[in-house]
Each structure stands twice: as structure tokens, then as C-alpha cells.
């Protein structure tokens, strides 16, 4: 009868519990895991939290009968080597799956070689096959700027980009595309392909790690492999990071991983040539300062043959 009073009450009746929805989706668990396993990366985590919130609210909106158009979630990850782009992409697939945005939640990681063919007519089927594989999940294109080679006008990369754009637009509900690469080259890539830039809503920049963060990453990596630093070992590795960061070809967490691999090698060597071969469990696990101090970085400054060279 009196419409005015019935309408607001209608709204009140259809209250939905955002908290209940939130805990039902297990998002917190994923976000906690993200916090715990990924050191640093503040802006990235913030962005992921925002995306999660948006998807959750959208879901609740849908439940209460409001329109919730599927947001476009194509992303671009830019950052220096070893800043965790691939790792985050993998986590992204899981998060989007939990939120029900992608159906399967698998990650298909490709580079130019998987998308672009060698002859006329080879590219389209190749690209389409990759896209079909990625449907229901996340397609991660590493070093995406290689797709576009302006210096070669007969390059088939453009064809691949065209198909990619088409599917990104038409099958928005079926897959999420994440482009990744180094900042400056990605910017150039987007600049010359405005179509792609406009279809990607989220540009996330991965900052470089601080030395303290790198040390935390190293400890986490070691813990994963059942190793640990001794007290002196940790201090030595802190120094190592300081020195290594000043050198060229420093690629953040990847350099740390390579350094740890070498330290493990030296540790094994040290144990092997030790006079007393009666080893305890903790001997096998511990990386000592000497394993790290033996590194070339401490001894000399001529580092032209550094083994991190060329990793990208």
C-alpha cells in the first residue's frame, strides 16, 4: 500500500553477510599464504587484495540480484628479473579459482615461441591451441614484448597479437591473460600496441627487493630445502647480498637462489673433505659462513665470468 516504507525494508531484508561469504571462499587462507611465502612486494599484495575484494563484492552483489558484470581481469606484470612475477602469476591463478572467476585455476606459461609460428598460416593454429589450453585458467605470457618486432614487418607476431586480442575480448569469462616483462620494454610494447594496453585493466609493477627482504627470501628458500644458515652464515650472506646488489646482472631473488645453490655445493664439498666424516643431522642441514665467504664476490672484483650472467 505505502510503497515508500516497503522499499527500504526490502533492502534491509536482503542483507548479506560479507564476512560469512569471505570465510566461505577461503580467501583469507590464500592471502595469508601469499603474505607468508612472498616476502615484500607490498604494491603487488595490495593489488591482489583489492582484486579479491572486488570479486567477492561482485559475488555478493550477484546473490542479492544486483548486476555484476564480470570485470576484465587481464593483467600486466612489470618488473626487473627475479622479482617474483611468475610466482605471483601462479598464485593469481589459485586466487581467481577460489573466487570462482576462473573455472579450473591452472596456469599455462608461454613465451613467444609457443605462440608464433615459422611460416605463413602457422601462427594462427599455434596461438589458438595455446589459448584453448589456457581456457578456464590463466595464460601467462612471459616476456610479452618479444611478440611484437617492429623492425621486421613480415614478422608473424602481429598476427598472434591480433588473435590474442580477439580472444581476450570475446572470451573474457573463460580466461585471464597475464603479460609479463621488464618495465621499460613492456612500456614500449604497450606504446606500439594501444589495443593491448586498453584491454588490460591492471598494470602491476613489481619493485626491487631490499637487502633485508632478500635475506628473508634466502632463509625461506633454504627452509624449503631443509637447509638453514648458521648464525655466522646468515651474517655472511647478508654481506654477500650487499656486495652482489652493486654488481651488474643482479636479478633479485634469482641471484639469491643461484648463490644458495653454489653455497650448497660448497657445503657438500666441505663436508666431503672434512677429516671427521661422522656427520650429524644438523651438520647436513647447516650452511656455514665459510660456504658463503668462499664466493668469488668476496675475493676479487673482476667478476666478468659471473655465472648469473645472461639469466633473465
Amino acid at each position, binding site marked *: 500500500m505505502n510503497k515508500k516504507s516497503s522499499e527500504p525494508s526490502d533492502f534491509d531484508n536482503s542483507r548479506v553477510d560479507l564476512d560469512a561469504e569471505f570465510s566461505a571462499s577461503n580467501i583469507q587462507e590464500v592471502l595469508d599464504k601469499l603474505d607468508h611465502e612472498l616476502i615484500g612486494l607490498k604494491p603487488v599484495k595490495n593489488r591482489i587484495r583489492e582484486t579479491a575484494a572486488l570479486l567477492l563484492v561482485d559475488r555478493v552483489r550477484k546473490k542479492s540480484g544486483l548486476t555484476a558484470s564480470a570485470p576484465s581481469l587481464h593483467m600486466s606484470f612489470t618488473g626487473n628479473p627475479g622479482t617474483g612475477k611468475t610466482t605471483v602469476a601462479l598464485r593469481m591463478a589459485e586466487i581467481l579459482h577460489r573466487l570462482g572467476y576462473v*573455472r*579450473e585455476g*591452472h596456469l599455462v606459461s608461454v613465451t613467444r615461441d609457443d605462440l608464433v609460428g615459422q611460416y605463413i598460416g602457422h601462427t594462427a*593454429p599455434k596461438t589458438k*591451441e595455446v*589459448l*584453448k*589450453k589456457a*581456457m*578456464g*585458467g590463466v595464460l601467462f605470457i612471459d616476456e610479452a614484448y618479444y611478440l611484437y618486432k617492429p623492425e621486421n614487418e613480415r614478422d608473424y607476431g602481429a598476427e598472434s597479437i591480433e588473435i590474442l586480442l580477439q580472444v581476450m575480448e570475446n*572470451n573474457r569469462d*573463460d*580466461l585471464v591473460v597475464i603479460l609479463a616483462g621488464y618495465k621499460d620494454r613492456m612500456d614500449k610494447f604497450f606504446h606500439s600496441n594501444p589495443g593491448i594496453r586498453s584491454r588490460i585493466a591492471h598494470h602491476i609493477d613489481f619493485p626491487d627487493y631490499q637487502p633485508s627482504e632478500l635475506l628473508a627470501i634466502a632463509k625461506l628458500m633454504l627452509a624449503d630445502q631443509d637447509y638453514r644458515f648458521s648464525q655466522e652464515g646468515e651474517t655472511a650472506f647478508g654481506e654477500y647480498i650487499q656486495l652482489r646488489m652493486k654488481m651488474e646482472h643482479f636479478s633479485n631473488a634469482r641471484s639469491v637462489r643461484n648463490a644458495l645453490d653454489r653455497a650448497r655445493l660448497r657445503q657438500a664439498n666441505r663436508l666431503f673433505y672434512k677429516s671427521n666424516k661422522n656427520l650429524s643431522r644438523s651438520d647436513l642441514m647447516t650452511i656455514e659462513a665459510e660456504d658463503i665467504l668462499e664466493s668469488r664476490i668476496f675475493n676479487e672484483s673482476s667478476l666478468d665470468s659471473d655465472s648469473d650472467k645472461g639469466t633473465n
Partner: protein
Amino acid sequence: MMTNLGNHITQGQFSFLPPLTDKQISAQIKYALKNNWAIGIEYTDDPHPRNTYWEMFGNPMFDLKDPAGILMEINNCRKTFPNHYIRVTAFNSTRGVESPTMSYIVNRPKKEPGFSLLRQEANGRNIRYTIHSYATDKPENERY
């Protein structure tokens, strides 16, 4: 004349049912993908039941996770051959099995004239029977 229920041929799975919707097709594809079967899309305009090998539309699709990609191909095929028979097959590549496990029609010509029964008088008073599709009287690609 052969029985032509509802005026359409009955081959493969679900052919006595009304045409499958895209949602139903997706569900069937999902089942095949769950079993790790490779899925192919095939088309023909010769509906004779002994015509086993239809033309493939693109390559068979391995290692997919989600039906969306296959549905996209089916729709491409429908666009290319709106008046052909199109079927989806699932192939089980397990060693020792290596055979198609599913096959169902997802697209039909608008009008399916069906088959005639031919009688051939052979030795003595023997009669040989065969069926013949009316559609195949016309050359390929003009049949429907």
C-alpha cells in the same frame, strides 16, 4: 523407406534426443576431459552409416582443461559448415584401448531427406538390399 524419426538421422550418442544445447555439449566435453580423452571435431555431408571417417576440423585437441576452447572450435565449425553434419568425438589413447569412446552429432543440415532402400536382383531369385542417401545424389558441397 528407412524409419527417419523426427526426420533426422540417428548416429552416435544422444541422437534420439532433441539437439543438444551448448550447455549440454559443454557438460559432455567436460566428462571426456575428465577422463583425459582427446577431443576432435569432424564434419561431413555424406550421412551414410558406413561413412566412418569424416573430415577433421582442425587438429584433435589434447591437454585441454576446460570445454570453453572446444566449444569455441565447434562454433567456428558451425559457422564454416552450417549445413553439414558435425560431430564431436572423444578418443581414449590408453595403450590397449586406443579407440573412440564418445561420438555425438552437434550440428545437422536443416533438411535431412533420409535414405532410400535399393533392391538389386542377383543370382536366382536373390535380392540384395542397400540404402542410399538421397542427399548424395548431388555433388559434394551442394547436398544440403
